[in-house]
Structures are given as structure tokens and as C-alpha cells.
């Protein structure tokens, strides 16, 4: 076991192994999911769990794995940029509905920040955790910056962002269908607003319309939260 850990830390091949291994696990789970058609067998979630178990078993640190799987992480930025394509395809329809879209996303951002802050203050009573949780629905770089500005706990921010992302990505589509939210536009907006880029990347496989509206919600929610959260949080603090 120690040998694998040492190899992982020292050998250049470990980078290839980390990237290839990650892709292999992901593709395998995807193939199994397509065959069995089970919702909970979400490729992203299962791959993460499998890799965590493997790293813990082999006593490999996350930092070591992450530095070797850096290539995949570096591809994240171009992959997010590629989401501009479905957005471009639906630009015409979106332009006609922009007022209602912005309105619903603004209400969403307000409710997300206020509900998370108040519930956390009531249950845990810690300001830095409350700030962290109020920012969990926006994309990581923005949330971390705002959390730092407002003296929030950045480690919890990072953790809850991933949680919110996976939760919306996995439970979002079946839940929305269950409550009869079947329009691809509504589903895309809801998942983009609640589960940022992780949710967007997952629903983008359902349809282009999902991808377009989810990308739009991702951007608009990030901008809205960046602008309004400092004001809302400073106001909410006076209540406690």
C-alpha cells in the first residue's frame, strides 16, 4: 500500500494514472447508469465516492491526487466557456423574456440568502457559518470572494457549494418533474440558480434548452448575489 502512495507522490506516470483513472471510473459508472437507468447512480457522485474511498484506503492525500489530476481541473474553464453555445442558440427567446427571468432569479437569490442566513443563525448561531451557507448557491470563485469580504468561513463555503451543487444535480430534475415543473426552461433556471455550474453541467445532457437556461441562471444569479448579498447580510446581522 505504501508503495502505491509513494508512486503517486513521486512518479510522473501518476499524473496520467490519476487523470485516466478518474475518466475510466466516470465512463464506467456512466455506462452502468445508462444500462440500468437508475437515478441515484449519478456518474459524478459515484466517481467522487469511489475515488475518496480509494484515496483513504491507499492513504493518499487529496492534495497529492488533486495536483496529479490537475489537467482535468484545468479543462474546467474551457468547458464552462463552451456552455456559451447553447446560450447563443436560445438568445432570441431569452431576450424576449429577460425581465421575467431576472425577476425570478432575483427573488430566488433573496430567498436563498435570507433563508440560509436566518435558519443557520437560529440553529447554529455562528455568524461566519451563516455567511458561508447564504452563499452556497453561487459559483465557487464568487462565493469565496464575498465570504472573505464579509468575514464568513471560507472552508464551509467551499464545502457547502459542492454539496448544494450535487444535491441539485442529482435530486433536482426528478424533484422538479414530480412537482410538475416540466418546462425545460423552468428546470434549467431552477437548477442553474440552486446548483450553479455542477447542476448546469449535469442538466446540459438532458437538452440544449436546459443547458441554455441553466447557464443563464448561473451567470445572472452570480451577478445578483455578488451585488445584493453584502447589503442583505449587513441588514440581517442587525436582527440577531
Amino acid at each position: 500500500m505504501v508503495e502505491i502512495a509513494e508512486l503517486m507522490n513521486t512518479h510522473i506516470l501518476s499524473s496520467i494514472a490519476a487523470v485516466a483513472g478518474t475518466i475510466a471510473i466516470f465512463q464506467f459508472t456512466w455506462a452502468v447508469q445508462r444500462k440500468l437507468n437508475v437515478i441515484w447512480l449519478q456518474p459524478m457522485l459515484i466517481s467522487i465516492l469511489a475515488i475518496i474511498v480509494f484515496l483513504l484506503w491507499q492513504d493518499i492525500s487529496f492534495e497529492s491526487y488533486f495536483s496529479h489530476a490537475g489537467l482535468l481541473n484545468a479543462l474546467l474553464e474551457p468547458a464552462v466557456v463552451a456552455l456559451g453555445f447553447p446560450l447563443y442558440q436560445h438568445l432570441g427567446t431569452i431576450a424576449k423574456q429577460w425581465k421575467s427571468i431576472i425577476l425570478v432569479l432575483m427573488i430566488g437569490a433573496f430567498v436563498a440568502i435570507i433563508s440560509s442566513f436566518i435558519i443557520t443563525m437560529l440553529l447554529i448561531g455562528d455568524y461566519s457559518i451563516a455567511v458561508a451557507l447564504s452563499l452556497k448557491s453561487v459559483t465557487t470563485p464568487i462565493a469565496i470572494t464575498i465570504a472573505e469580504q464579509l468575514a464568513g468561513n471560507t472552508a464551509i463555503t467551499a464545502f457547502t457549494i459542492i454539496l448544494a451543487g450535487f444535491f441539485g444535480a442529482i435530486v433536482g430534475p426528478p424533484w422538479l418533474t414530480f412537482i410538475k415543473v416540466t418546462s425545460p426552461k423552468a428546470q434549467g433556471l431552477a437548477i442553474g440558480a440552486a446548483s450553479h455550474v455542477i447542476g448546469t453541467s449535469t442538466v446540459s445532457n438532458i437538452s440544449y434548452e436546459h443547458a441554455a437556461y441553466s447557464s443563464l441562471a448561473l451567470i445572472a444569479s452570480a451577478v445578483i448575489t455578488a451585488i445584493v448579498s453584502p447589503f442583505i447580510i449587513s441588514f440581517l446581522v442587525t436582527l440577531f
Partner: protein
Amino acid sequence: MKVIVFKENVFNALYSIFAILSCVALGRVCAFYAPLLPSSLYGLIIFTFALHLRIFNAEKIKSSVIWCIKNMAVCFVPAGVGIMNHFELVKQFGITIVAITFVTTFLLLTLVGLHYQRYAEREE
């Protein structure tokens, strides 16, 4: 014939890489001078408008982008594994944080989804 198709596919893939990477670069410049949004979101906006203004040919980019979007989820796996570094946090604050995250995400999903669904139905 096959060679021509292959050459065309390779050209389109390279063209798409060039288009996307130039938007990534421009996004980074924007994020440097106006740090309101992260560079990837600036890149996304620039890419959308570059296609809209026909700076890039959407037809040539289409197949590469479809492939890219279909497979992008795998790029989140390394960052997601980062959860293992936060086990201590969960131990410290218990399951409350996880529960609050789930409940409020649920609330947001339902609110935005229902609200826009009603609007979409009215429009139709």
C-alpha cells in the same frame, strides 16, 4: 471521401479549440480588470456574443461543443473529491450544515422552478 471528412473534422476541432481558448483568454483579461465575475463566466458571455455576432462560425463549432458539454461533468470530479478534506467540519458542526444546505437548496429549486413554470404556461 473519408480523408476529406476526417480533415474537415480535424479542422473543425482545432477551430473550436481556438475559438474557446481565445474566449478563455479574453475572459481572464476581463476578470483581471473588472473582478466582479470569475474569468470562466466572462469567457462564457464573450463566447455567446462572439457566436451571436458571427465572429466564429457556429456550424463548424457545433459538433466539438456538443462533445465537450456531454463530457464536461468529469472535470468536476477532482474538485468534488475535495469534500474529503472537510470531514472534520462535518464532525465539528454535525449534520446541521448538511441539512440546512439540503433544505435551502430544495426551497430555491422549488421556488424558481414553480414560478417560472407558471410564467412559461401563461406564455404558451
